[in-house]
């Protein structure tokens, strides 16, 4: 019921309409969903997770275990919103979770009657046979909170803000504000983050004198003072995690359904002023709607003018409730204070409280205070160790952690005296420890009987503290009970580990702008618009968005390139400059083949190995002059090759004598391939000193194009006569159009990557990582020269001479042919053989295509002892089906290489 005096948080002139489980209700501007429901007299706000017990609002902050709702407005939806931290707005639809049709009439409510058949570990023990999957869907439908919004369509995304300050204060209660004020006066830059809707913490509803003035006056003056000193204050902002080197992450809730902002704040000192959370008392039926945190009841009374009952019983183990009793008496409620509670009557709301003498006291609210649990999560996340204090009945921060200070109630400075009497052994009627996950004292007793000792194990077995509230109200009562049940001290029993986040945090906060295209940004070609205009279908290859094909007929595309000329965008190919007097020596060390013997103007193909001897990459290296080389590695290995060159440069060489520069992003490369490629290039003005006919295979020449430099290399990945023309990015469009103009009369086409893959496979040219795997060494690919002849040191050399590297049964690159009229082998098919009746793999198909040139399927594979087994038939298996293929040389067209020299 709302009192005529209203409260300090609401605006009585601004009513807001909302619905709860379809029922029309009215609240006020400033209300939370919880305060509005209490004002509207709603007692049952939801059903418990396991037993579907009716539950009411317990607290008033992020510790709330019961008041979890699905809230929506128009198409906006927020599942599992805590009613205590969700602000009311006009037209809000609030639905209870885990209840159907609604919170007060729930069809699964009868579960509670069968509770003794659903003890701790019930699911683990019961649904093992024949398998959990059979039972899971039905159990999921009955248990669990909220549902996923399947038409998720966010209007905005989280902002992510990086910030720094000298002192970050977490919590804007009395101690936090005092600490912030002191630090600001010392000239430090200070930030305060606070979970509350308004700063003040308990000052907002407790009446105390501070430095001789009332709490509200002190708060008002301090806030003005802090603002004057430029102290930044974030409200509704939860510091949910502390990470290495004093990085604090904060989720700041925004209005309405906007996702929270994420703050990453790096600070020299963290002041933990997070206060303490009031604990329930453990007695039979202590989860009934109407049983509530005493401090929260005062909060609702003073802040929202909501009196949660008119016949109020207060049970407490400390002296914090005297003020609450008086406040309720002032609000004309009948108040009875009792020493202890034996039981509670009333299923959907309290009707009577049975006190320790067995007297029945008619009541509609039972306010309890079972002591205070300091909020030490951030201290513990920062490797702080707690110590048990009997006099506080709480775990308190122990030794200080560097760069962090814990103050106020969080450090045990409650201002109240607690004399805890812990719950006795479980009786006949269940007493709740964890409201949200439905864990009772009986469940803990059972876990103890089954010899669970470690609190971490008890937590997982009984699910104590594993709900979305992470046991903020229940953990201590649970472990105290466990200590008693196992005959150990509370200190010996210890706490579970505190991990971020402190409260459930929207995944939107972590995502920020990294969604859709920005989730994993692709690298784009300078010529993308030109390719699109030409009808290219794009696909991602090694992080680059590249034309896969121009149209739907890849076979025709490949065939045209064999017959006339194709233009292929090879811009992502690496172009790493290695410069200096020791450039040749570095490349020798880095490469499998010797590079320093290359003559200027020439190209050499070769491998780079890992130190394990495994092939890392292949590529073509060009020598520009005595001191300058260009390494053209695979497009997806550019960063890796650059980094390993840099590493060896600094580790094995004099860095002043060799320098590495990754020029890949600055150049565009267009490849022309096919018998008419030379004719095409003749139409372009490339400013070459020599005629193209005089440029030998595996050589290059420098020229100019449209006023910029150009590099023309005669090198082939298709098996046909082929030239790579590289120009600065700024000339790419001009080069593209010039090539297209020249190619049309020659019958040329644009060539996508898929058709290029067919051409190279016909020729038996490999792709590293496709036709090789993590076991492939260069000699498995037929390249034995450097291993046998080089006498100098190079990366991976020693590994080529291990027993394993020189073993007989290595998988080697082969070609695979199928019988006339058969379809292509599926890539990934395993070659099989039977040894003593058992199947084993002898290798697999790495590349497989229908060859448009040969009009039959071709395939490459890695097969045991393949090089020596040409002509052998191997059985292949794919999805249970067996087929045969014949091992052939890994080159299907033009083994003599005449097409390279037309």
């Amino acid at each position, binding site marked *: 019921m709302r009192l005529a005096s209203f409260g300090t948080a609401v605006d009585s002139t601004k009513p807001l309409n909302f619905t709860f489980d379809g029922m029309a209700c009215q609240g006020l501007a400033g209300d939370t969903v919880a305060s509005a429901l209490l004002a509207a007299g709603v007692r049952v706000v939801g059903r418990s997770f396991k037993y579907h017990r009716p539950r009411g609002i317990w607290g008033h902050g992020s510790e709330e275990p019961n008041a979890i709702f699905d809230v929506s407005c128009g198409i906006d939806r927020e599942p599992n919103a805590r009613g205590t931290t969700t602000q009311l707005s006009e037209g809000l639809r609030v639905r209870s979770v885990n209840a159907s049709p609604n919170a007060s009439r729930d069809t699964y409510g009868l579960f509670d009657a069968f509770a003794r058949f659903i003890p701790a570990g019930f699911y683990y023990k019961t649904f093992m046979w024949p398998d959990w999957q059979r039972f899971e869907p039905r159990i999921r439908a009955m248990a669990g909170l909220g549902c996923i919004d399947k038409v998720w369509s966010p209007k905005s995304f989280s902002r992510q803000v990086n910030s720094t300050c000298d002192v970050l204060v977490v919590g804007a209660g009395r101690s936090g504000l005092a600490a912030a004020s002191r630090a600001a006066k010392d000239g430090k830059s200070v930030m305060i983050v606070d979970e509350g809707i308004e700063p003040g913490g308990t000052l907002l509803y407790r009446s105390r004198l501070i430095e001789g003035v009332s709490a509200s006056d002190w708060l008002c003056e301090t806030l003005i003072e802090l603002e004057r000193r430029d102290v930044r204050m974030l409200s509704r902002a939860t510091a949910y995690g502390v990470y290495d*080197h004093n990085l604090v992450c904060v989720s700041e809730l925004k209005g309405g359904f906007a996702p929270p902002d994420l703050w990453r704040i790096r600070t020299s000192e963290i002041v933990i002023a997070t206060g303490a959370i009031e604990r329930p008392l453990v007695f039979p039926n202590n989860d009934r709607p109407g049983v509530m945190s005493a401090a929260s009841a005062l909060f609702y009374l003073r802040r929202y003018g909501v009196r949660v009952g008119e016949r109020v019983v207060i049970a407490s183990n400390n002296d914090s409730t005297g003020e609450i009793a008086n406040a309720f008496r002032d609000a004309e409620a009948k108040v009875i204070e009792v020493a202890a509670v034996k039981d509670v009557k009333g299923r959907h709301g309290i009707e009577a409280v049975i006190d320790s003498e067995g007297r029945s006291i008619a009541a509609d609210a039972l306010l309890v205070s079972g002591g205070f649990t300091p909020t030490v999560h951030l201290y513990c996340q920062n490797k702080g160790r707690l110590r048990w204090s009997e006099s506080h009945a709480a775990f308190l921060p122990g030794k200080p952690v560097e760069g962090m200070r814990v103050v106020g109630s969080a450090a045990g400075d409650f201002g109240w005296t607690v004399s805890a009497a812990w719950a006795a052994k479980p009786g006949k009627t269940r007493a709740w420890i964890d409201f949200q996950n439905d864990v009772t004292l009986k469940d803990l007793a059972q876990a103890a009987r089954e010899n669970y000792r470690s609190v971490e194990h008890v937590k997982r077995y009984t699910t104590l503290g594993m709900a979305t509230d992470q046991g903020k109200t229940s953990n201590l009562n649970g472990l105290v009970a466990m200590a008693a049940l196992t005959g150990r001290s509370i200190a010996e029993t210890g706490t579970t580990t505190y991990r971020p986040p402190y409260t459930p945090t929207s995944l939107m906060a972590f995502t920020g702008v990294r969604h859709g295209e920005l989730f994993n940004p692709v690298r784009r070609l300078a010529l993308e618009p030109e390719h699109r205009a030409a009808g290219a279908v794009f696909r991602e290859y090694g992080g680059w968005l590249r034309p896969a094909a121009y149209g739907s007929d890849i076979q025709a595309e490949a065939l045209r390139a064999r017959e006339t000329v194709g233009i292929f965008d090879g811009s992502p190919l690496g172009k790493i400059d290695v410069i200096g007097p020791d450039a040749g020596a570095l490349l020798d060390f880095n490469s499998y083949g010797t590079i320093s013997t290359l003559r200027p103007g020439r190209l050499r193909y070769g491998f780079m190995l890992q130190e394990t001897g495994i092939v890392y990459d292949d590529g073509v290296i060009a020598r520009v002059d005595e001191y300058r080389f260009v390494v053209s590695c695979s497009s997806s290995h550019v960063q890796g090759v650059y980094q390993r060159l840099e590493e060896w440069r600094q580790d094995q060489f004099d860095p002043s004598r060799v320098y590495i520069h990754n020029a890949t992003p600055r150049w565009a490369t267009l490849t022309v391939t096919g018998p008419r490629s030379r004719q095409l290039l003749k139409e372009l003005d490339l400013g070459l000193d020599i005629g193209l006919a005089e440029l030998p295979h595996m050589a290059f020449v420098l020229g100019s194009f449209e006023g910029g430099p150009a590099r023309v290399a005669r090198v082939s990945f298709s098996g046909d006569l082929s030239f790579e023309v590289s120009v600065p990015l700024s000339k790419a469009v001009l080069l593209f159009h010039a090539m297209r103009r020249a190619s049309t009369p020659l019958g040329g086409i644009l060539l996508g990557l898929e058709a290029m893959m067919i051409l190279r496979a016909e020729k038996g040219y490999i792709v590293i990582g496709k036709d090789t795997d993590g076991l492939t060494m260069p000699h498995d690919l037929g390249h034995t020269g450097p291993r046998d002849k080089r006498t100098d040191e190079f990366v991976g050399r020693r590994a080529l001479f291990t027993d394993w590297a020189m073993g007989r049964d290595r998988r080697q690159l082969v070609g695979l042919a199928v019988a006339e009229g058969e379809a292509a082998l599926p890539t990934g098919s395993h070659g099989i053989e039977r040894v003593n009746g058992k199947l084993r793999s002898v290798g697999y198909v790495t590349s497989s295509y229908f060859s448009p040139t040969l009009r039959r399927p071709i395939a490459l594979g890695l097969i045991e002892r393949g090089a020596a087994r040409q002509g052998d038939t191997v059985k292949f298996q794919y999805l249970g089906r067996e087929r045969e293929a014949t091992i052939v040389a890994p080159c299907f067209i033009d083994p003599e290489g005449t097409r390279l020299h037309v």
Partner: protein
Amino acid sequence: MQLISCPFCGLRDETEFRFGAEAGKRRGTASSSAEEWANYLYFQGNPKGQTREIWVHLACGEFFMLERDSMTHEIHQSYCIRKEDQK
């Protein structure tokens, strides 16, 4: 998120760095025994507590020595490996 000090660039987020090797580790050669080579490739000291390691700052590309505590994540110091850079 740790803050690591690059001797050339100052304090930066750990995402800008990559581990290189444990300090003092010698590269094997063609004349290494099988054991020596396997040690070089696969075996790390992985000390708990004080460590000396080579790291690289990917932003500037420089390899440097980093002394840190693998338990507490405390960074003690970092410095250049080569004399001429130490000035």
